[in-house]
């Protein structure tokens, strides 16, 4: 317990605080440098960088939703499964007409398929929020249930097989580029900027921080906790839906196993980006960099010839170190 008195507040520029705040950018740079040298320059090649950034889109978009949730002291374990549901639903509506298609005679505009996938994601997220807000279920439990149920629904809906033979336009979202910039990156950027604006420039954004900072105080301040909770989880589900459509487009099919384990990457990205598990703290730019670190790690370790198993160990260690640093920074 600090023995502080009335006027105890620091007024000068705090170098240590500045370093802690922006240390994450330094970590990313160190990462890139190390990986560049370790791979003999391969890591920095344009194609590889584009790969990193393209692949980061799905993780990053989900991590942004996760950031909202974690700021309010929640968690969403179901994002990977929601991603899969969105992927199978959207692809099933974007198949070329054929006897083996899910809906043999259906031919909808691709935009409808895309929006349907996103809407299904939002619906699943709304369900999470509704359960948490109405029945006061712990977010961990509610979304754990959704994680299992949604994955099951994705498997049932697709008969456990990838849904393929898609309208080529559908793959646009995952595979094409505009002015040389891959579409997933453009979507990721739009989502990030929008989320940043919501968190920092809207009333709702203030509510998100307030709920995480002190839920009871937020309530007394006139914030409708129930509505805010539902909106936050709906948003998280909607973003998982977008990630699902992009992921399906990238591989050109709707695989019900898509997104398995992505919740861990998303949580890791948010946390190493400075989002606090004690609530009330987190930024979108931090999460974006966190996602880039995760994806550099994923790609870099592959370039170095390390297998998945080693990656899992390294990622596990990173999240723990990040939380320890966070602990020392904030309290």
């Amino acid at each position, binding site marked *: 317990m600090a*023995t502080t008195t009335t006027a105890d507040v620091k007024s000068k520029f705090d170098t240590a605080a500045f370093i802690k705040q922006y240390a994450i950018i330094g970590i990313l740079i160190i990462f890139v440098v190390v990986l560049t040298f370790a791979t003999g320059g391969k890591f920095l090649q344009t194609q590889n960088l584009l790969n990193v950034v393209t692949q980061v889109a799905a993780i990053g978009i989900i991590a942004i939703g996760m950031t909202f949730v974690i700021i309010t002291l929640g968690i969403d374990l179901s994002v990977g499964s929601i991603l899969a549901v969105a992927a199978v639903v959207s692809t099933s509506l974007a198949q070329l007409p054929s006897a083996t298609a899910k809906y043999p005679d259906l031919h909808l505009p691709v935009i409808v398929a895309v929006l349907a996938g996103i809407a299904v994601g939002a619906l699943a997220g709304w369900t999470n929020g509704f359960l948490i807000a109405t029945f006061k279920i712990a977010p961990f439990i509610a979304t754990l249930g959704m994680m299992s149920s949604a994955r099951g629904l994705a498997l049932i809906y697709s008969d456990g097989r990838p849904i393929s033979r898609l309208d080529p336009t559908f793959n646009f979202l995952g595979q094409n580029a505009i002015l040389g910039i891959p579409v997933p990156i453009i979507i990721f950027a739009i989502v990030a900027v929008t989320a940043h604006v919501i968190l920092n420039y809207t009333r709702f954004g203030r509510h998100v921080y307030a709920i995480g900072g002190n839920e009871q105080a937020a309530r007394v*301040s*006139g914030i409708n906790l129930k509505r805010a909770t539902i909106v936050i989880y709906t948003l998280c589900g909607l973003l998982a839906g977008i990630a699902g459509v992009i992921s399906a487009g990238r591989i050109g099919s709707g695989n019900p196993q898509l997104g398995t384990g992505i919740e861990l990457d998303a949580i890791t990205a948010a946390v190493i980006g400075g989002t606090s598990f004690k609530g009330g703290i987190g930024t979108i730019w931090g999460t974006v960099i966190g996602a880039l670190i995760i994806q550099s790690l994923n790609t870099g370790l592959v370039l170095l010839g390390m297998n998945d198993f080693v990656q899992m160990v390294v990622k596990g260690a990173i999240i723990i170190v990040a939380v320890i640093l966070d602990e020392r920074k904030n309290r």
Partner: protein
Amino acid sequence: MTEQFVLQMQNISKTFPGVRALDTVNLEVRPGTVHALMGENGAGKSTLMKILIGMYQMDAGGAIVLDGQTAAIKDTASGLAHGISMIHQELSPVPEMTVAENIFLGREPTARFGLVSRKVMVDECRKLFDRWEIRINPSAKMRSLSIAQTQMVEIAKAISFDSRIIIMDEPTSAITEVEVAHLHRMIDQLRERGKAIIYITHKMDEVFKISDYVTVFRDGKLVNTLPAADLDRDKLIALMVGRELTEMFPKEHAEVGDVVLSVRGLNRGSLVKDVSFELRRGEILGFAGLMGAGRTEVLETLFGVAAAESGEIVVDGKSVRIKQPKDAIAAGLALLTEDRKLTGIMGVLSVRDNMIMAALPKYSPNGMLQKRRIEQVCEEQRKALALKTPSLNQHIQNLSGGNQQKVLISRWLLTLPEILMIDEPTRGIDVGAKSEIHRLMSALAKTGKAIIMVSSEMPEVLGMSDRVVVMHEGRVSGVVDRAEATQERIMQLATGTAGATGPADAA
């Protein structure tokens, strides 16, 4: 002659951020006596006892001497090892465990192979209960017990350590007369066996009935220790109050206007029973009463934190329905809650965010924040309230208690309320900030705001209020005008010993 004391606490001080809770206190307790500690809420009694049992650490320079030997009490385990146990005011049972398991929590008797023996535990517990004539089933789940039974279990638990010093912090606040008599018999027996009982209470009758010595605390200082036989009610109250009120409370005269709030027959559970009162513009209406009298609950009910079961709330002549705080804010009410940390500040958020939170709808008409306006009004508040913070970006948790309180006052002023309800406006705040906040309340009343102030500090109630509503066990036991408000009068009403003055004079 140190041997005649079982306990000597010497030069004990304790500083919390922004507050000096204890100031060089010396307490000496003799074995085989009941030693009562008295004083207003926040006078330092509980803090001193928490230091004694090892829950808090004292500031450097003090010493605890037990039976003539200096003892270092690092934590509660070492407190127990030194023969000190405490019945806490806030009960702390584990609800899903049995009575016996709770009694032996952390020191479970073991049988073969070092395994916990449920049977031994239940047998030991039954022996203990038989010895003290407690009729509670040791195998019952703690959850299934009444509050009074729970309290008896806690008492039995404290006794079961066979400590030389047993501290009881308001043990009778939750039990009925039958159990009180039972507890007093137990205390007599413990005294005969040479135990020292330190007894914290607000109940005067109890003090004179059971205690041998009385120590009075005020503002973190020990005022005096006297044999109970040398004291009477008036002397004791004088010791407890003993300060010049006029200097501390800059209450200025404000023109009292029309009725702005009238509450009729408000009910909620056992803590708000048929509460009616009126509040006028420019008035500071004090709410006095003992802890648990229902004052905070009245404010919470008015503000929609918890829903009223029945009753009518009329603001400015219009009957309003308040189901959640949002409705209350819309009706022009504001509530500065009692517990700054639990329901007030959002610690890791900035001073600016904390300030603007309740008034956000005014500053984001279409959902988008009007950042420039927000900056402007927060800056104005910062100047007007002489807030000490390096910047509005500072996390509020880094401010002192007094400055945090100012931010929270700003939070509510920015909603432009007609009625400001403040629960314990200066709890845990140092003296300087206290008078600033009192001045501010006076100034607000002058501008025609109506203020309800719940306070457990008698000087504050007497010094600041135009009228005082006194509550006792969920009911309004009386309303006293400023001119007639004395500590004695309020204490009588608060303890329910005032005789036949019912809530008839409410309004």
